[in-house]
C-alpha cells in the first residue's frame, strides 16, 4: 500500500511540474510562443520528466534492495550461534522472523531472541519506508524545481523530450531480446547444475524415468533415474495422434473454405470454427478427462480392448481438435496466396476443381502447408494443460496409443508444482526438460518460418 501511495503522489507531482514548467516557459517570453525554441508543452513535459523519472528509478532500486539490506542488518543483530547456522536453516529462521513481524503463523516456538529480531525487523522496515518516502519525494521536488529554474527560451526542450521518448521506444523493443536471454539463461543455469549431478548422456539416452529420489537409502521405488527417452517418446506419440486428427480435418476444411464454400457459408462457419482456437487449453483438458477418455475406455471395453483411462489416444485426439483451427487458418493463408492465374490455367486445360486443387494448388502451396504443420507440431509439443489433465503421470515407453504415456510438459509440471526446495536433482530436472523443449520448439519454428517466408517470396 505504501508504494502505491508514493507512486500516486509522484504522479501528482509530475502533473504539477508539467503545469509549472509550461507556465515558466510562457512567462519567460511574455506569452509569445513564437519566441520559444519549442512549444510550451514540451517545457512542461521536460520538467515533469525531471521530476518523475529520477524518483521512480530511485524507488525501483530501493524496493529491490530494501529486503536484502534489512535482512542483512537483522542477521547481524542475531546471536552468534544463529548466525553460524547453515544457510538453509538460517533462511528458515529469517522466514519465521518475517512472519512474526507480520503477525502470521510461525513454524518454530517464539522465544525472546526471535521476538527481538522480529521487532528489529519491523522497525527497520518502517524506517526504510519512511526514508524512501522522504528521499523519493525530495528528489522529485528538487529535480523538478531545478529543471523548472533552468528553463531558457533557447533550450531545445522538444529535442530532449523526443530523445527520452526515443530511448523508451528503443528499450521497449529490446525487451523481447531480454526475455529470450532471460529464458535461455534461467533454464540453462539450472540445467547445468542438473547435469553436474546427472550425466548428459544418461539424461538424453536413458530409457527409464523415475524422478523420485530416495530420502532414505533403503526406500523402495525411489530410484532417481533420469532417462528422458520415454518422455519424448510419449510426447511424440501424443503429437502424432494430434496431427493425424488435425492435419486432414484442418487442411480439408481450409480447402473447402477457400475453393468451394459460398460467401454466406464462409462468413457463418469460419468464426464458429475459430471459436475452437479461442477456448483455453484447461477447458480442453477438462473435456478430455471428463468426456473423451471415459468414452474411449468404454468403447474399448465394448469391443474387448483394454484402454487405459488416461490413454494417449484421448489426450491426442483432444489436442488434435484444439489444433484444427491453427492448421486450417495457416493453410487458408497459403492457399489464398496461390495466384489465380495458376487456377485459371488448370481450368483452361479442362481439369475439374478437385483435380486443380490436388495437382496444382496443393503442390504449389505445399511448402507453406508443411511450414504450417511444423508450427502446429511445435505447439502440440509445448502444450501443457490437456496432457496434464488427461495423460498419465508415470513414464511408459510404448507405441500403443491405448496405454497411458507421460509427456515432457506433464513432468515439468509435476516436478515443480508444490515443490519448494531447489537443489535436488528432481527439481532441476524440470529445467533440463524445459531446455530441451525450448530448443526443439525453437528449431521447429525457425525451420517453419524459413520455409513459409521462402515460399511467400516465390509468388510476390
Amino acid at each position, binding site marked *: *500500500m505504501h508504494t502505491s501511495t508514493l507512486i500516486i503522489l509522484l504522479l501528482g507531482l509530475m502533473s504539477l511540474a508539467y503545469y509549472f514548467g509550461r507556465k515558466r516557459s510562457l512567462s519567460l517570453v511574455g506569452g509569445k510562443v513564437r519566441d520559444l525554441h519549442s512549444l510550451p508543452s514540451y517545457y512542461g513535459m521536460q520538467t515533469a520528466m525531471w521530476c518523475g523519472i529520477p524518483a521512480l528509478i530511485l524507488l525501483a532500486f530501493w524496493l*529491490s534492495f530494501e529486503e536484502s539490506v534489512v535482512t542483512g542488518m537483522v542477521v547481524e543483530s542475531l546471536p552468534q550461534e544463529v548466525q553460524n547456522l547453515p544457510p538453509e536453516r538460517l533462511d528458515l529462521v529469517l522466514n519465521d522472523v518475517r512472519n512474526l513481524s507480520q503477525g502470521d503463523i510461525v513454524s518454530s516456538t517464539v522465544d525472546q531472541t526471535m521476538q527481538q529480531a522480529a521487532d528489529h525487523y519491523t522497525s527497520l522496515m518502517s524506517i526504510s519506508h519512511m526514508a524512501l518516502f522522504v528521499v523519493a519525494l525530495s528528489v522529485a521536488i528538487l529535480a523538478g524545481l531545478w529543471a523548472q529554474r533552468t528553463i531558457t527560451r533557447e533550450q531545445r526542450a522538444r529535442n530532449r523530450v523526443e530523445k527520452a521518448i526515443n530511448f523508451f*521506444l*528503443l528499450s*521497449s*523493443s529490446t*525487451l*523481447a*531480446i531480454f*526475455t*529470450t536471454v*532471460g*529464458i535461455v539463461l*534461467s*533454464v540453462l543455469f539450472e540445467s547445468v547444475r542438473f547435469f553436474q549431478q546427472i550425466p548428459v548422456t544418461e539424461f538424453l539416452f536413458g530409457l527409464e524415468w523415475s524422478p523420485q529420489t530416495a530420502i532414505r537409502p533403503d526406500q523402495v521405488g525411489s530410484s532417481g533415474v533420469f532417462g528422458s527417452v520415454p518422455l519424448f517418446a510419449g510426447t511424440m506419440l501424443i503429437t502424432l495422434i494430434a496431427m493425424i486428427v488435425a492435419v486432414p*480435418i484442418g487442411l*480439408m*476444411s481450409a*480447402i*473447402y473454405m477457400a475453393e*468451394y464454400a459460398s460467401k454466406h457459408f464462409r462468413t457463418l*462457419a469460419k468464426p*464458429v*470454427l475459430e*471459436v*475452437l482456437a*479461442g477456448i*483455453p*487449453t*484447461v*477447458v480442453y483438458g*477438462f*473435456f478430455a478427462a471428463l*468426456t473423451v477418455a471415459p468414452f474411449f475406455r468404454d468403447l474399448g471395453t465394448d469391443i474387448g480392448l483394454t484402454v487405459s483411462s488416461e490413454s494417449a489416444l484421448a489426450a491426442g485426439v483432444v489436442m488434435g*481438435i484444439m489444433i*484444427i*483451427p491453427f492448421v486450417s487458418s495457416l493453410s487458408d493463408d497459403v492457399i489464398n496466396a496461390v495466384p489465380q492465374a495458376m487456377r485459371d490455367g488448370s481450368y483452361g486445360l479442362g481439369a*475439374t*476443381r*478437385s*483435380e486443380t486443387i490436388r495437382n496444382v494448388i496443393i503442390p504449389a502451396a505445399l511448402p507453406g502447408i508443411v511450414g504450417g504443420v511444423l*508450427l502446429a507440431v511445435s505447439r502440440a509439443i*509445448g502444450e*501443457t*494443460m490437456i496432457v*496434464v*489433465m488427461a495423460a498419465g503421470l508415470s513414464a511408459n515407453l510404448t507405441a500403443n496409443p491405448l496405454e497411458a504415456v507421460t509427456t515432457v*510438459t506433464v513432468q*515439468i*509440471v509435476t516436478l*515443480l*508444482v*508444490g515443490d519448494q526446495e*531447489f537443489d535436488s536433482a528432481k527439481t532441476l530436472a524440470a*529445467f533440463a526438460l*524445459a531446455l530441451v*523443449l525450448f530448443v526443439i*520448439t*525453437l528449431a521447429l*519454428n525457425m525451420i517453419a518460418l524459413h520455409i513459409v517466408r521462402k515460399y511467400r517470396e516465390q509468388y510476390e
Partner: protein
Amino acid sequence: MNNQQQQHKKTMDRVQKGLDRRYRQERHFQWLGLGAIILGLVFVSFLFITIISNGYTAFQQTYVKLDVFYDPEMIAPIGETDPEVLSRANYGGLIKASMRQMFPDVTNRREKKVLYGLISSGAAYEIRDAVMNNPELIGTKQEVWVVADDDFDMLIKGHIDLRLPESDRRIKDNQLAWIHDLQEQDRVEKRFNTTFFTAGDSREPELSGIKGAAYGSFFTLLICLTIAFPVGVAAAVYLEEFAPKNRWTDIIEVNINNLAAVPSIVFGLLGLAVFINFFGLPRSVPLVGGLVLALMTLPTIIIASRAALKSVPPSIREAALGVGASPMQTITHHVLPLALPGMLTGTIIGMAQALGETAPLLMIGMVAFIVDVPGSVMDPSAVLPVQIYLWADSPERAFVERTSAAIMILLAFLISMNLLAVWLRKKFERRW
C-alpha cells in the same frame, strides 16, 4: 470414313466414361471438405453441449428450511450484544437441535451424525451472521433456509443414480427417507446459487465460489495490461517507424517471432527463476502472474500493433512531415491515433489469451488452495483457469458441475472480449 467416325465415337465414349469417374471424384472430394468442416462444427457444438449440460445446474443450489430456536442457553443471554461473545457461541448445535426435533426417531449416534450431514457445515456461519447482525433473534424461534450438503444437492438435481446398490451411492437409504420427508413438508427448495459468485474457494463444494479466482484474474490482467500494452506499442512503433534497417533490428524481429511460439510453460519457468528466485518476489501473487503473462502476450501485441501501423498510408506521414512536424510529432499526433483501433484489437486478443492461460501460472505457485478473496496485487490468489484446474481434480461429483459452470463464466468473458475486438475492428476499420 465410317472407320474414322467409329474411332471418334470410341474416343468420346472413353472420355465420357472418364468424365463420369472424374465428376464422381469431384463430388467425393467436395464431400470430404464439407465433412471436415461439419466434423469441426460437431466438435465445437459437442464441447459446448457437454460443458453446458454439466454446468447449468451449478447456478442453482438446494436449500432446506429449518425451524431454528435461537436458544439463549447455547448462544448468550437475551440482550447480549457483545460481538466477541456472540461469535464464539456454538451455532452448529442449534442446527443439530432443530434437526433432532424434526426427526425425533433418530436416536442412534451414528445415524444422528449422518442426519446432521445433510446440512452444509456452512449453515452454522449463516446462523451466526444472522445473530451478529440482529442479536434480538436470541430467544426466538425462526424459520431459516440453510444450504444443503453437496450430496443432498446432487440428489435433488438428479445427478445420483438411485438404481445403484446402496453401498455404491453417496446417499444412503436412510438419508433418502429423511430427504423424502423434508420434501413432503415443502422444506426443500432450489434457489439461485449466490454463493457461487460471492465466495472464494472451499473444500466444500456447496460453499465454494469463483469470486476469489475472478478477482485474482482481474488483478493479474491489470498488471499484464499496464505492462504489455505500453511496452508492446512502444516496441512496435520503434520497429516500424524509427528502427534503422540493420542486423540488430533483424535480430529483434526474429526474436519476437520466435517468442510468439515458445511454449507458455517455459515462460512460467522464466518467472520462477527470475521473479521468484532471483528478485525474491512472493509466490502465488497476481503481480508475478501478471509479469509472466505480460512477457508472454508481448509478441502478440507487438505483431498486431505493427500490422496496424503498416496499414496507415505513408501519405499521412508525408503530409505531417511536409508541414513541419518532427518525426516524433508525426507519429504521436497522426499515425498513432489512426493505428490505435488496430492496436487495441490486438491487445484485447492478447488479453483474452492471457485470461485463459494456465500452465505458466502453475509454475509460479498460483495453484495454492486460497480461500480469501484477494484485495491487491500482492495477495496470494488463484485465477479462473487455475480454479477450473483445481476443481477438475477434486473427486466430489458436485465439483464437476462447478467446474463446468466456472468454464461457462470464463468462456463468456473470453467470447465477449473477442466480440469487442471484432466490433472495434468493424467500427474503426478504414480502407485507404
